[in-house]
């Protein structure tokens, strides 16, 4: 479960810290107390920044770091595809062996495949991704309101 890639992201997180954003959400995992505050800044359909601050286990923290690395600079449509692929992998109960196509989409995030075997830890891995989805929806609806 604890792949080197995950431990690397845990010890040296990418993009950690809160910066300006269009929307902010705070998500918690009530069963274990993992928390994340996450902000999204959009430039049209491009994700300009995802910044975050949180506390939690290595899985939840590394996952947020991977998310930042993967999604910043992406178009929203591509980001959504990555998010959906990651969600499917995490919900696979260890039954999905990531293939080349999946690895191309998920890059470092394929390292979390092993986590999907541990039901108690899947939520840790998904915490930041759910927060990102929520924050993005919020940013888009704010934008729609002001447009």
């Amino acid at each position, binding site marked *: *479960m*604890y792949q080197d890639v995950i*431990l690397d992201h845990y010890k040296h997180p990418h993009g950690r810290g809160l910066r300006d954003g269009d929307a902010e959400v705070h998500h918690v995992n009530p*069963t*274990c*107390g*993992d*928390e994340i505050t996450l902000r999204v800044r959009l430039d049209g359909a491009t994700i300009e920044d995802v910044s975050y601050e949180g*506390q*939690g*286990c*290595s*899985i939840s923290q590394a996952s947020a770091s991977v998310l930042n690395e993967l999604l910043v600079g992406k178009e929203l449509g591509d980001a959504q595809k990555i998010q959906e692929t990651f969600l499917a992998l995490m919900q696979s109960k260890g039954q999905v062996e990531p293939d080349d196509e999946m690895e191309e989409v998920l890059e470092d995030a394929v390292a979390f495949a092993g986590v999907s075997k*541990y039901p108690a*830890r899947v939520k*840790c891995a998904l915490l930041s991704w759910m927060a990102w989805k929520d924050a993005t929806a919020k940013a888009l609806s704010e934008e729609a309101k002001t447009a």
Partner: protein
Amino acid sequence: MTRLPGLLDTEAIRKDFPLLDRVVHDGKKMIYLDSAATSQKPRQVIDALTEYYEQHNANVHRGVHVLAEEATALYEGARDKVAAFINAPSRDEVIFTKNASESLNLVANMLGWADEPYRVDRETDIVITEMEHHSNIVPWQLLSQRTGAKLKWFGLTDDGRLDLSNIDEIITDRTKVVSFTLVSNLMGTINPVEAIIRRAQQVGALVVIDASQAAPHMVLDVQALQADFVAFTGHKMCGPTGIGVLWGRQELLEDLPPFLGGGEMIETVSMHSSTYAPAPHKFEAGTPPIAQAVGLGAAVDYLAAIGMDKIAAHEHAITEYAVKRLLDVPDLRIIGPSTAEDRGATISFTLGDIHPHDVGQVLDEQGIAVRVGHHCARPVCLRYGIPATTRASFYLYSTPAEVDALVAGLEHVRNFFG
């Protein structure tokens, strides 16, 4: 092998617990240090459940056939056993529930619907403590929100004890009920019952004790405690899940109104109104957890045969050893009392900056089962400024070698994340 004074013959005891022979993760011996969450079950309890279902299964208190009579005798026999186990003055003071949470909710609801002098309303206070399990917080929050009563609580000292320095301001003439845990499920702290009860009695408040973490581990004598209600659960004391107990003083059970209505709890029913059976049946609506009660009866037989005083001495010895060894682990901070004095065999700790989930997962890979998280006592974590803890809890079958395995496991965790 480490020999400590006061230890039970764990070699013999462990033979009674089939699960303790399990191996996990490709041949690693299971080291179960999560008995505060639920205890393992001895063969005697498992057999009692099987025998009940294979030989005696029927509904209780109805029907005249032989099985119904046997099932009723077994169910009511379990009540006798539990009453003797806690030294209740009367078997009719023992109410079977499904767990301690239901027991505590039942008291809160009895008081919420009661007339004077028991009535809880906006003129009155409810007192709890900051170290309660959520099951002894939330029912009182609900009662407070529904009645307008004010909820007050005792805070905690830095070393994991109740701060009773302001007891006269917390428990006052307005206090209607004081509910607190005998032993903290997160920190293991054993609370000074006498001081709290003395003050509660001065102001005429009812006292409810959550004994969930006490009943499995020490002599529980409800008469010596002098409380009005005592709640505990079966599955933490070698019994099955789905069975809890609420003990209450007889005159209170007579005076207080029922909470759940249904079969079994009535005397007569017409379409306009009903009259109720006497306690304990007044508080046991519907078909009760029969097999589970029988299993709990077998569990208290098992514990009583070993002796609760001997179990307490065993756990004290293990605790003393575990505290000493854990404090030698670098960066380990015990949340709660850091000596074995007035504490049970449940030890919570943090390990540097390593998140408890990671600690628990890497321990699990070595076959060591601990609990991680806030242990349904989140206010304690907030009090000490931590998101969660790792908790190791010991029982009558725990050995010093398992403490050693935990300490070695924690060293491995430190190296892994270091």
